[in-house]
């Protein structure tokens, strides 16, 4: 295997650890929703850099285009008009992969190396290894991965791993005109967020805070929210995301237990045969039948 430009922390469907000796800086994108104007520069820059083009859709009565994430739209803006404390607010959230520390997609993926987590925190899909089963969709707490209708491969934000590998900021962060998307080490991003939160507190947003949910071990895409106590205001951002217990069961305990149970059944049968011997037709019965024939 070639040496990676980015060190790999874990790999889907791989039971042994990857080389772990090298320590690299953990990176993050900080999306300061309070500075976001929903201009979609990030959306366009993402499609441009990654050479993907969503279909030209239609207006469905809101500003949200592309209307949803897709294999060709790895990020999209979600607009919510809410009234808080008698004041209208237009909350605009950039939706896309959160690059969880504990990624549900990777946990669910059955194809070795189709999903990798780099040591810097990026969770990346490798389409050449992807088998298109959609388990990553099932595993994701944020409803991010999409299976292509044309090639049945899973796609999502790569965090521009190709840019990161040459020490360039992701396309979205670079483009962002208002600096609502910041890119840097996760530690720096948290410090930056603290400053933004202090500023928001001063401007009357008492509940401003950082969205870096524990349930998935923290994320490498974090939000500064004016109303951190109500993430769901932001187009249904999960209050307390985590890998679903069903998924944990399926890809956690169930995996070894069921495998062991099957092994035991097989072994049990073998030993039963060895210990008890075959269940053969008895000599008496054979004789009885022979006698019946004679009779």
């Amino acid at each position, binding site marked *: *295997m070639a040496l990676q430009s980015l060190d790999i922390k874990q790999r889907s469907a791989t039971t042994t650890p990857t080389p772990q000796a090298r320590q690299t800086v953990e990176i993050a994108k900080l999306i300061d929703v309070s500075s976001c104007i929903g201009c979609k520069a990030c959306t366009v820059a993402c499609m441009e850099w990654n050479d993907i083009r969503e279909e030209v859709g239609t207006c469905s009565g809101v500003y949200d285009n592309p209307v949803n994430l897709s294999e060709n739209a790895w990020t999209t803006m979600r607009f919510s008009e809410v009234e808080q404390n008698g004041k209208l607010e237009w909350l605009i959230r950039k939706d896309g992969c959160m690059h969880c520390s504990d990624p549900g997609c990777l946990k669910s993926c059955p194809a070795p190396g189709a999903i990798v987590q780099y040591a810097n925190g990026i969770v990346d899909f490798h389409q050449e290894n992807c088998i298109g089963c959609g388990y990553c969709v099932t595993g994701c707490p944020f409803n991010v991965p999409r299976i292509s209708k044309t090639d049945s491969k899973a796609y999502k934000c790569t965090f521009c*791993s*190709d840019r990161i590998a040459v020490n360039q900021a992701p396309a979205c962060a670079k483009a962002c005109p208002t600096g609502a998307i910041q890119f840097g080490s996760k530690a720096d991003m948290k410090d930056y967020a603290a400053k933004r939160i202090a500023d928001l507190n001063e401007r009357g947003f008492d509940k401003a805070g950082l969205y870096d949910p524990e349930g998935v071990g923290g994320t490498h895409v974090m939000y500064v929210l004016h109303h951190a106590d109500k993430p769901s205001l932001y187009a249904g951002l999960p209050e307390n995301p985590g890998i679903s217990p069903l998924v944990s069961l399926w890809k956690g305990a169930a995996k070894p237990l069921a495998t062991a149970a099957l092994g035991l059944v097989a072994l049990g049968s073998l030993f039963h045969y060895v210990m008890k011997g075959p269940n053969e037709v008895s000599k008496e019965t054979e004789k009885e039948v022979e006698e019946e024939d004679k009779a």
Partner: protein
Amino acid sequence: MNVTRRQFFRVCAAGLGGSSIAMMGFSPTAALAEVRTFKLARATETRNTCPYCSVSCGLLIYSTGDKSKNSQAEIIHIEGDPDNPVNRGSLCPKGAGLRDMVQSPNRLKWPEVREAGSTEWKKISWNEAIDRITKHMKADRDANFMTQNKDGVTVNRWPTTGFLASSAACNEAGYLSVKVLRSLGMTTLDTQARI
């Protein structure tokens, strides 16, 4: 009975055998995970300015080839120029999408004419286009050029052909246009400054 059992095993043999071999490591290694190669390596970088609003963001235009004689440059990517003091590398959704403007399917590629009353375009050469347009211009100018107004003041104007100038043209192009148009006596002249 023994034969039967053997036959049963035979059914499974292929499957089990195959999988055992695979489990012993004969399967292709599927776990390679290299990031996409950085696509701008060795692309030609050109500094430019966004043609949309008058924030005039600095651009880096990346094109294929190294400007050698036999390679035709194709623009493959456009992003913000981090040195530009105004945009510092950032771009808006319009600027970030510039590549699709440059490569729009609706770019014009050759001169065309739509004849009076016709329902379609006809491709023509530049020579024909310039010949025909200048003939129109001269005929109109010669017929309608006003040397003096009714009070006998010399006015030297040509009011019957107008020109709407692009606000996206370079200063140099704008200057040349105004220089030529005024020399022709044209007074019906406006730009998209206001709308």
